[in-house]
């Protein structure tokens, strides 16, 4: 067998496998129904006013903080929702129990740390409430991840289920 020719067929087959796999992968992904994006929520005016006064952060930037281990994530939803699933490593400070729960995490939340709060996504004010509570006691480096839990899930980013962060 001509060696040059046989290597050529090896390369052709390899490229063919990669190309076919890529196409099949993309097609299957397109066919399988996606998790619904709650982007059609009607965002209340009061929320827009609240959020305009806060520092916000996108999913992408929050994720780069996540990988760089340079921020603490706070889940502002209630504990039952937190247990159903949350950002991997996020701590849970429910918006209505800030005074009771905050002391548990006081050591973790040093004032120089970047803090990112989140809840049910666009239109959800719980993360704003927790961020305000934190700012009221002297934290300055607080960000609200407005796209929240649905945004994180839709981006397929690391999550954790159960009561552990």
């Amino acid at each position, binding site marked *: 067998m001509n060696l040059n020719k046989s290597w050529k067929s*090896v390369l052709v087959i390899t490229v063919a496998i990669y190309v076919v796999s890529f196409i099949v*992968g993309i097609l299957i992904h397109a066919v*399988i129904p996606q998790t619904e994006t709650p982007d059609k929520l009607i965002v209340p005016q009061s929320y827009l006013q609240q959020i305009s006064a806060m520092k916000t952060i996108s999913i992408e930037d929050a994720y780069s903080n996540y990988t760089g281990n340079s921020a603490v994530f706070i889940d502002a939803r209630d504990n039952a929702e937190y247990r159903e699933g949350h950002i991997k490593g996020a701590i849970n400070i429910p918006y209505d129990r800030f005074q009771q729960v905050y002391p548990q995490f006081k050591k973790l939340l040093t004032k120089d740390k970047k803090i990112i709060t989140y809840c049910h996504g666009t239109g959800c004010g719980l993360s704003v409430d927790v961020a305000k509570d934190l700012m009221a006691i002297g934290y300055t480096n607080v960000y609200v991840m407005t796209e929240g839990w649905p945004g994180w899930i839709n981006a397929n980013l690391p999550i954790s289920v159960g009561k552990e962060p």
Partner: protein
Amino acid sequence: MERKCVINFALMRPVIILVLRVILGIVFVVAAYGKLLHPDALVSTVINFNILPLGLAKIFAETLPWIEMIGGIMLIIGFGTRGASFALGWLLVSFIIAIWINIHRGVSMDCGCFDLFGMNEKIGSAILIRDVVFLIVAIALVFTKEFMLSIDTVLERKTIK
């Protein structure tokens, strides 16, 4: 005595190659099946490896199981065997690099290699060595001219005739 051993090995060689080829094929098909069952977990794993940017990681996660599935089946039936081994070999190189980088980062993470039977391996030197062994087999197959019990051999004989 020594001569006899050499002859025996020469006779055994096609059989050994056949066994290695089929085993490697089955390994990849099983790995692909587990990944196809849990697409979300695979995307998370690839992202958690933290090597590719987000967009590329998703594309890689969508493509990867199909390369394993198609390549694995081709190895088992012996069709385009050398090409399939070459394709899977490069995949193994990417796995080895990715695992090696993350071991050096000191990260403990799910390997995501075989997402089946609740297998939940963590990356480590054992998995690195396993992938290197698979890679050696794949390289050996790329440099093999004839495959026993393969479609390749049947087709080649037909063209010669």
